[in-house]
């Protein structure tokens, strides 16, 4: 962007301290220690709960441990790369992601009724929509970093197009849940970039009558019924309602202190479906009670807080926006998962970060935190 600006920054008095900085091993390794420790605690809780919720499935737990190993390695590697490099490759990354999504739509594998996977000979299967969760905020941050902020209406329009294309491609797969998450990760960049409150308010005000129009004029009765069931799963006790009734029973029966590790009857008697994947927080709540839930939420809040600190102390616009958007996305995963399992949000397929079983999600999350660490640890090393 502007090397003059960097040179100017480098000579600011506030940054003079770096010259007298004492030896910092973690800084040399480009690791943010508070974040790493919090992530390791969350991962450990996840492994313990997975072993219990999977019914003492040692192989599954080991596989998850290996996923964490790979994830942490990816995080470490990504943290070494300076934010400037990410900024340079962002548009290519985004374009590649969109191309992969198009490829999925054309030649993707259909699994479980949705076309989300792309088989690459010799590599295996990849899920480009997962990749887009990072490529989207990178692209938006790259785009807004060189624009004057708050963004003009024209630039907001371009940004919305950039968000819309991949989101629609993912929604077509069909994977509405992921499409919303991908779109949200881009919208967060716009919000943090200073999108005018008037525009936000105007958008919401425009959506309400539109939604009402669609609801009352374009939907059939059975479609309305299906949407109502999404928000009220108890109305469908043989389908999604079963999961929610069982997960609420699991959470509620846990009480203040929980039934203890490996003692959750709901999950062990196989009443709780998906007890080791999307619904693992129900098994956790049953075994560790409200205290356990508060501990877990505290760790998440610490991670979110530390990430916001990294974002707001970042020295250039790109890093700030990207770090902020990654943080907000992380929060959304936690909130949507904990909300849907406890029955206050519709059931969509979002895993609980670092706790739910599944390697892909772990690697995506670790990549995000790798970028955050890169932003944090390259701040004071401008040379």
């Amino acid at each position: 962007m502007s090397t003059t600006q960097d040179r100017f920054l480098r000579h600011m008095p506030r940054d003079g301290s770096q010259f007298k900085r004492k030896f910092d091993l973690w800084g040399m390794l480009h690791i943010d220690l508070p974040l790493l420790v919090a992530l390791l605690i969350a991962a450990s809780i996840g492994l313990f709960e997975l072993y219990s919720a999977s019914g003492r499935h040692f192989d599954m737990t080991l596989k998850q441990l290996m996923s964490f190993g790979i994830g942490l390695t990816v995080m470490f590697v990504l943290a070494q790369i300076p934010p400037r490099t990410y900024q340079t490759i962002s548009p290519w990354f985004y374009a590649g992601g969109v191309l992969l999504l198009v490829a999925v739509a054309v030649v993707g594998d259909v699994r479980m009724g949705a076309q989300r996977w792309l088989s690459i000979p010799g590599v295996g299967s990849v899920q480009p929509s997962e990749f887009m969760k990072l490529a989207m905020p990178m692209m938006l941050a790259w785009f807004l970093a060189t624009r004057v902020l708050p963004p003009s209406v024209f630039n907001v329009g371009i940004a919305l197009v950039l968000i819309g294309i991949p989101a629609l491609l993912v929604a077509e797969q069909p994977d509405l849940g992921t499409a919303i998450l991908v779109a949200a990760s881009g919208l967060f960049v716009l919000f943090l970039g200073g999108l005018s409150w008037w525009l936000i308010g105007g958008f919401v005000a425009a959506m309400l009558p539109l939604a009402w129009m669609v609801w009352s004029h374009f939907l059939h009765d059975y479609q309305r019924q299906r949407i109502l069931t999404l928000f009220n799963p108890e109305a469908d006790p043989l389908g999604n309602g079963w999961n929610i009734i069982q997960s609420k029973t699991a959470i509620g029966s846990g009480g203040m202190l929980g039934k203890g590790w490996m003692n959750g009857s709901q999950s062990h008697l196989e009443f709780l479906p998906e007890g080791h994947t999307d619904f693992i927080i129900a098994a956790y709540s049953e075994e560790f009670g409200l205290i356990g839930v508060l501990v877990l939420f505290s760790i998440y809040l610490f991670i979110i807080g530390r990430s916001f600190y990294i974002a707001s102390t970042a020295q250039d616009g790109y890093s700030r926006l990207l770090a902020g958007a990654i943080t907000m996305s992380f929060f959304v995963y936690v909130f949507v998962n904990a909300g849907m399992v406890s029955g206050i949000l519709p059931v969509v397929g979002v895993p609980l970060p670092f706790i739910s079983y599944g390697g892909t999600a772990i690697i995506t999350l670790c990549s995000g935190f790798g970028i955050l660490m890169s932003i944090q640890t390259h701040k004071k090393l401008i040379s």
Partner: protein
Amino acid sequence: MRRQNAITIKDNQQEAALFRRRAIVAVVFVLLMFGVLIGRYYFLQIIEHETYSVLSENNRVHLEAIAPPRGFIFDRKGRLLADNQPTFSLTINRQQVEDVNALLTKLTPVLNLSAEDIRRFKARAGVARKYEEVPLRLRLSEEDIARFSEVKYDMKGANINVELSRFYPYGDLFSHAIGYVSRISEREEKELDPVKYAGTNLIGKIGIEKYYEDYLHGTVGYQHVETNAHGRLIRVLKKTPPTRGSDLTLHLDYDLQKIAHDQLAGRRGAVVAIDPSTGGVLAFVSNPTFDPNAFVGGIPYKLYASYRDHLDKPLYNRALQGIYPPGSTIKPFEGMGGLHYGLVSWDYTISDRGYFSLPGDTHQFRDWKKTGHGIVDLHKAVVESCDTYFYQLSDRMGVDRFHDWMKHFGFGAKTGIDLVHENAATLPSVQWKRERLKAPWYRGEMMSVGIGQGYFTATPLQLAMATAILANGGNHIKPHLLRTASGTTSFENINKSDYKVPYAGDPADWERMKVSMRDVVHGPNGTARATGYKVRGYEMAGKTGTAQVKGIKQGAKYDEATVGERFLDHGWFIGFAPVDNPKIAVAVLVENGKHGSAMAPIARALFDFELLGKRPEVAAIPTPAPAASDE
């Protein structure tokens, strides 16, 4: 980008401040949302803790699916063709069983379980929820129940359930039309909506049962039941009853079906009768047939093998899938085509010396009557089934114009009847031959197509449809079995003509063609005059046809033994009655029946009943006679 930088200076400090303000808003939002989450978990885990503890501790409250009863199927006069009857089945509740394999081993001698039964059970159990009852054996006999009752104390987790099963009161009479239901296969299991089919074991496999599966199935119900530690039901807490599937009323008529079936007894063939005004199928018979009730509870392998390997192929739906050269039955339609294209008129005549030759070629395409028919106009050509006339007409028409006209009658395409696995047969064209046989069209090939042989094939259903359209005076209909469906499901069903065949000539030509077909039966020289003498109380129209069986050379010698009989020509008869206001159109095909004229009595038997309410006294089984009266 660069230009913008040059004009407006980006102020990093100011933007960082803006970001911080936004980040603070975000942090406040995050804290609020976590507040909501904590509130929710507090509500569930502290305030509602007692309620959920009780629910969790007595895991005795189960949700059970109640399968909906299947809709009934009636004939047009309300006679029940597919009924539901209670049967007993043995199911296993895996929640009550510690070792499922041990239980299966114990049950094997009691119920004579086969390895196949156990494999199927395991496949079903693999996709069922833990709390669901998984069926092990359907349709228990009374002895099975008695033997099981003696050892029941030792078989915790195995239960006898009463459920409704399908029963076809008329046995094999309707099997090719209505089809049957049978146990859901593993492959179907994977594709079905598990909620919709919770508790259901049977699904439509072919025929009406398959085509209207969604209507017949109904809506699943469920109940919350409280059970004791042994899984025995204590009380029903809450119940949402299932909704029975839609009842279907068909156009089929039991009497017509029965008459057609009896008339065909002992022969391989098909009879399709259609109401020309609605397109409703009144009779749909393919012979030989099979017992659909045998399939409902899982057909024993021996019986299935006997069906499958029988020389007469009883499982083969001849009316829907059998493709035969239509022979001379196409002549009335083809004649209308000649009028449509202006190639012939009613006054146009040819002189038939018993054969036709293409110009510049000495090859003689022979008429069935060696001496020829003399001076022949269209009326005579239809009445006496003159080949020479149609050799000449089809040569002048050409295969593509022939194709374009004949397709209006349903040839060469699926009729769209509400049955599965229909065969489209073949209506040739230049393009068809290029695509399918990778060969050009030869002029001489049109000769055999023009008299319903060669590449031209049709199903009995297609010929019945074509006959109904002609009887209708060119009003196109689509054959269908369903008349009405009751219940909440709506469906699209046109019980009338959907469009008029675009005919370029005088509309009165349709009536004249019908009169020509009347004279096939009632005229002094008609090919079906033997039947015409016996018709009382109404007039019928018709056309005979003979389909050569491929694979035997003209004039080749064959034995009169059974094997030889299978090389005799197929006999066709199409017809409708009464001539002036047709109420029923029929196509009859009898394999190796040799002569179409011999099939006319079968059609007459149906007309007698439909128009006069008269039942045939004796079965008019056509016996192959050596004297040739057609072709």
